């Protein structure tokens, strides 16, 4: 069962070229610092943001990232939502499996990001696009 979550504040960033991935990483680091996450958690969330932003760019053909500070009443956390209007993911299970890649990468990005974050959901439709939401709680 998922607890209800409330959004405290939010920021949107475009992800259109490789420089945007660098900016996305920097912004996520700022948000993680604001929330006073530990150094390990900061690094985890920034790394996951880097992976997912690059996926949005390379597989989704560009899109945007929304960073939000969320709370479920007790805990606070950072939620990252990556959306694109790309080809979508035909087989989520395959995409999440380690070592599988449809391009040149290592095939660890998506599964690795899932392990780096606490909550992780993929909504995708072939031909329509993909929305990946990942939250790291403090």
């Amino acid at each position: 069962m998922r607890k209800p979550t409330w959004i405290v504040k939010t920021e949107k960033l475009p992800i259109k070229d490789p420089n945007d991935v660098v900016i996305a990483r920097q912004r996520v680091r700022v948000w993680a610092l604001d929330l006073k996450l530990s150094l390990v958690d900061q690094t985890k969330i920034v790394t996951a943001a880097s992976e997912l932003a690059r996926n949005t760019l390379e597989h989704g053909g560009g899109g945007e990232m929304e960073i939000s500070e969320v709370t479920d009443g007790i805990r606070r956390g950072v939620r990252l939502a990556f959306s694109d209007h790309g080809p979508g993911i035909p087989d989520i299970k395959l995409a999440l499996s380690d070592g599988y890649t449809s391009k040149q990468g290592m095939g660890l990005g998506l599964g690795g990001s899932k392990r780096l974050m606490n909550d992780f959901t993929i909504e995708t439709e072939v031909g329509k696009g993909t929305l990946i939401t990942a939250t790291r709680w403090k």
Partner: protein
Amino acid sequence: MAQVLNVIQRNQASLLTAWMKSMQLGIRRRDLISEAELQSQTEEVLATICSVPAESPLDNLNAAAWQSLREILASLSVSRASQGFTPSETALFILSLKSPVFALVRQQSGNDADQLYASITEIDSFIDKLALLTTDSFIHGRDQVISRQQEEMLELSTPVVTLWDGIVALPLIGTLDSARTQIVMESLLQAIVQTNSRFAIIDITGVPTVDTLVAQHLLKTITAARLMGAECILSGIRPQIAQTIVHLGINLQDVITKAKLSDAFKLALERSGRTVTRIEKTIRPNQ
């Protein structure tokens, strides 16, 4: 329609005075440019406009007749940029030509409202285009400065240092993207050949994030170095980076890794048959 140009050319001298006067109103920056310099620039621009054949089209700045004007405006905006003008101030320099020309056209057309309207529309869009051209050149100049600085930074950020005979180190700082990795890899491989090194230490203390792409780049560099007969040691893996690598599932088992550069250096010395020892202080008789 080239009548307008004709009018401008016939009244070059009076137009120059009027233009200088209209610039006095507000947009002068006496702190940045001297009166004499501005006067000569204004003269030059106006003279160039007047030197083109009177039948040149005003609606097409790309025509061959306007080539020299385009060049003068481009160099003018670049010099303005370096003098510290803003793009809008540079554009205003050209735009302030409008009102004197309008006044002149009005004088010439008399009471013919239709002709006045046609002439003003034409000259208006012509001067707008000139102003936009200065803005474009201004931004183009800035872009060139930025890209030159980027290239300089790429060069700067990849120094390969020799730690000992046969041991080179590459301290990486900042984000590792594909372009930089290419340069890093090339300079490391070059250094391995030049210094005839058997050991290469890659230190990632200054790399803030190690994601799968960075790891892949590192592994490629290490494999390439290995193909050239050098052994690579990866150092500077901080605790948070180590945890992240484990969660991502990146396999670095085939790579020798150390937490600190000093550990990696020590290992390289040992493997090349050297040791570091502390010498007991001996008191010499004459001291």
